[in-house]
């Protein structure tokens, strides 16, 4: 199915994402930051849908908005936020932060203005009907070894998280 009003939805979702990102790094209360991050992640999942990647969009919603953010909220609940809310929120590195952000942004702008012509418009005649099937074929075929390594990584992360958070080993 051909997409409808792509520019409108792109700018809407991009605006939501950027506003959410700004809220994440400026809010005093960590819970508000977490909620803003959830909004950002959901908008990004919609952008994945616009890019014809429904499987990645589903993974994004289930894993990020459903898994990682719940973990964040649990940890915010465990550590007391009352004290940290009374403290100064930004450290004295803001000069370094602004310089680094300006340099990075300038670098990106330079790269994009130079590379603008590398990305020509082309007609995309891709059907996304069997996207999940194709992703699975690649994941269990060509990327089988990397997939197994990823499962090992998750095992290590589980053990690591339990060992770190345990009171006495």
């Amino acid at each position, binding site marked *: 199915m051909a997409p409808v009003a792509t520019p409108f939805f792109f700018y809407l979702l991009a605006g939501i994402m950027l506003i959410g990102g700004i809220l994440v790094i400026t809010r005093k209360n960590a819970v508000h930051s977490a909620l803003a991050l959830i909004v950002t992640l959901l908008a990004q999942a919609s952008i994945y849908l616009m890019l014809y990647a429904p499987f990645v969009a589903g993974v994004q919603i289930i894993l990020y908005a459903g898994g990682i953010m719940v973990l964040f909220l649990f940890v915010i609940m465990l*550590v007391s936020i009352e004290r940290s809310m009374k403290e100064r*929120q930004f450290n004295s590195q803001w000069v370094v932060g602004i310089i680094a952000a300006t340099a990075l942004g300038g670098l990106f702008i330079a790269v994009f203005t130079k590379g603008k012509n590398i990305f020509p418009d082309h007609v995309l005649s891709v059907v996304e009907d069997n996207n999940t099937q194709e992703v699975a074929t690649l994941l269990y075929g060509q990327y089988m070894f990397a997939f197994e390594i990823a499962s090992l990584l998750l095992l290590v992360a589980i053990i690591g*998280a339990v060992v*770190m958070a345990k009171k006495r080993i």
Partner: protein
Amino acid sequence: MESMLHITTLHYLVLGAALFVLGVIGVLTRRNVVIVLMSIELILNAVNLNLVAFSRYWQGMPVRMGGGPLALHGQIFSIFVITDAAAEAAVGLGILIAFFRNKETVNIDEVNLLKW
């Protein structure tokens, strides 16, 4: 105006770059460890957005150059990045809990035991 109304790969890359810069600012300037970890998630998401956008770009390329409808490598890679983000969040928040138990604070400026 014409280039603004036609969404190309470059638009997605610019959006990803903006999110990346926001995440870098958050990592460098915030003092709350939880929000620093959330900023790292923002950075990883910006990278993911780039990967999926490039995957879309390669799907429109000719097959003899490695493109075609089956060139979903960017999406596969973004799934791996999401896996890494989950592992990183679990371990990072575990470290945070251990740190909070010892020092009773989530201020990143007080993580200075190894400072010379």
